């Protein structure tokens, strides 16, 4: 979709041909493309538990279940929201530039026979739904250890309606204004990463710092969990990026290879920066760096060659490491660095797409200045919109139901106070 859409909007028939490939003459879905899209959807779903572990390992033991739950509950509420209305608002018909229509509420009208390109539209819908799930879960990394579970749950549902669904429509929906402008976002650099990153920043400005931050110790309680999570994220990201070709074709393969390469380079970039700064590369650095590389290659995965992916990923590692270090000086408490990694990394990736894209799109290195400009517009538009709406939403929630747990509950830990459980009894 992400690849087909720019074309489809302008010339659907051509796009169809391109996507279908020369040999597919059937009228039903292409089994190979469908297989890949289903596998990719499953992979992206797995990223959510992966993210939960990635985040969970970084918090203190008393908040481990609470942190996991912030991701898991997104699988609960957003998967349902998507079926009920989210898909329709993002990709429904009667297209406008800002939001989709209401004709696809409850996915109505989508039967197993309905096709989009070479795959059943339902497959496209569920694949997109996985993106809608993971995006708010990403935000949770900034809010951990102090946000109320109930308020957070309400927040992400509203955020889906107010921020995610519109943004997805802008960038990927038929008639979306950024799509029409030609913004390149292969797999969600702006829709997913910029939007979650700046929303995280907006939310913590309302939510405030964790009690005792930064004077007390905030030491990751289980980095093996974080590394496992990072491994699952890498694995799942193949679905995220290469699945966004919406077919098992050469573009998917290119996206796959560039994704793998950028993740590796991101890890090396971050570790190099740590080696220089602290003298020792760390395991948390490896995990963070590979995620930074993955974030950065996301918008350009299908447009950037593996060689350039080394540059995009490697710089992502360096840049995000710097961004994360800045936090302390700026004095906000983005607990698990959602802004530093996803906001900054996503923005870098969107710009990098405008710098290094050479396959099926132009960029600075091919002399296409306009594309770079469009990329800037895309990032700024998504960032401003997400920031403002999220900030207002959080203020309203905080003033009404309250976003933050009591100081006592924060001290005891949210596992016990919010969920009545304990993470470990070893």
């Amino acid at each position, binding site marked *: 979709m992400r690849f087909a859409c720019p074309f489809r909007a302008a010339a659907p028939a051509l796009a169809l041909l391109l996507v279908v490939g020369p040999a597919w003459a059937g009228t039903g879905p292409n089994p190979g493309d469908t297989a890949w899209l289903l596998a990719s959807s499953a992979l992206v779903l797995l990223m959510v538990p992966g993210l939960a572990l990635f985040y969970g390992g970084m918090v203190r033991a008393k908040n481990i279940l609470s942190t996991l739950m912030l991701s898991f509950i997104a699988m609960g509420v957003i998967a349902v929201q998507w079926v009920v209305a989210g898909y329709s608002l993002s990709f429904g018909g009667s297209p406008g530039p800002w939001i989709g229509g209401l004709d696809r509420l409850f996915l109505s009208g989508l039967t197993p026979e309905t096709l989009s390109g070479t795959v059943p539209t339902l497959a496209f819908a569920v694949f997109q739904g996985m993106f809608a799930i993971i995006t708010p879960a990403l935000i949770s990394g900034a809010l951990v250890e102090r946000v109320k579970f109930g308020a957070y749950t309400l927040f992400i549902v509203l955020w889906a309606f107010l921020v995610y669904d519109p943004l997805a429509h802008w960038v990927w929906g038929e008639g979306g204004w950024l799509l029409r402008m030609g913004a390149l976002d292969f797999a969600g650099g702006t829709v997913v990463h910029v939007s979650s990153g700046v929303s995280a920043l907006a939310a913590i400005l309302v939510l405030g710092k964790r009690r*005792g931050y930064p004077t*007390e110790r905030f030491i990751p309680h289980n980095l093996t969990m974080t590394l496992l999570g990072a491994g699952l994220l890498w694995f799942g990201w193949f679905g995220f990026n290469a699945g966004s070709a919406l077919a098992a074709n050469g573009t998917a393969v290119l996206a796959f290879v560039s994704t793998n390469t950028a993740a590796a380079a991101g890890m090396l970039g971050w570790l190099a920066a740590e080696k220089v700064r602290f003298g020792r590369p760390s395991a948390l650095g490896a995990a963070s760096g590979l995620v930074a590389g993955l974030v950065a290659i996301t918008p350009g995965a299908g447009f950037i060659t593996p060689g350039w992916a080394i540059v995009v990923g490697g710089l992502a590692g360096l840049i995000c490491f710097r961004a994360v270090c800045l936090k302390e000086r700026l004095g906000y408490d983005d607990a698990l660095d959602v802004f530093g990694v996803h906001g900054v990394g996503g923005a870098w990736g969107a710009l990098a797409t405008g710098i290094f894209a050479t396959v099926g799109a132009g960029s600075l290195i091919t002399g296409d200045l306009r594309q770079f400009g469009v990329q800037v517009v895309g990032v700024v538009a998504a960032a401003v919109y997400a920031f403002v709406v999220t900030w207002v939403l959080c203020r309203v929630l905080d003033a009404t139901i309250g976003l933050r747990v009591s100081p006592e509950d924060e*001290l*005891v830990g949210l596992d*016990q106070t919010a969920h*009545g*459980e304990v993470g470990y009894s070893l």
Partner: protein
Amino acid sequence: MKKIEAIIKPFRLDDVKDALKEAGIQGMTAIEVKGFGRQKGHTEHYRGAEYTVDFIPKVKIEVVVPDELAPAAVEAIERSARTGKIGDGKIFVLAVEEAVRIRTGERGEEAL
């Protein structure tokens, strides 16, 4: 010499350590323990079942000091561990007959 044992709230550990250092104490030992007392526990539920948890995580600090330092050490702990809320914990003082530094074989107050 006296052995001072203090059971405190875990999040006060760093403050207590600093207070003891200021009081001139150069070594101490900390242990994770579970306390039962007036501070009431909480309930947990797992699927259908509900459990009451009476034991609360605490930290126990053990520090051996020369007799004359004991009052100051007790006072330092009291001050730095106090939150004023139930469950702040206890300090116990016991007599120590001998102390040895393993590394050097020094005996008595020398060894502390």
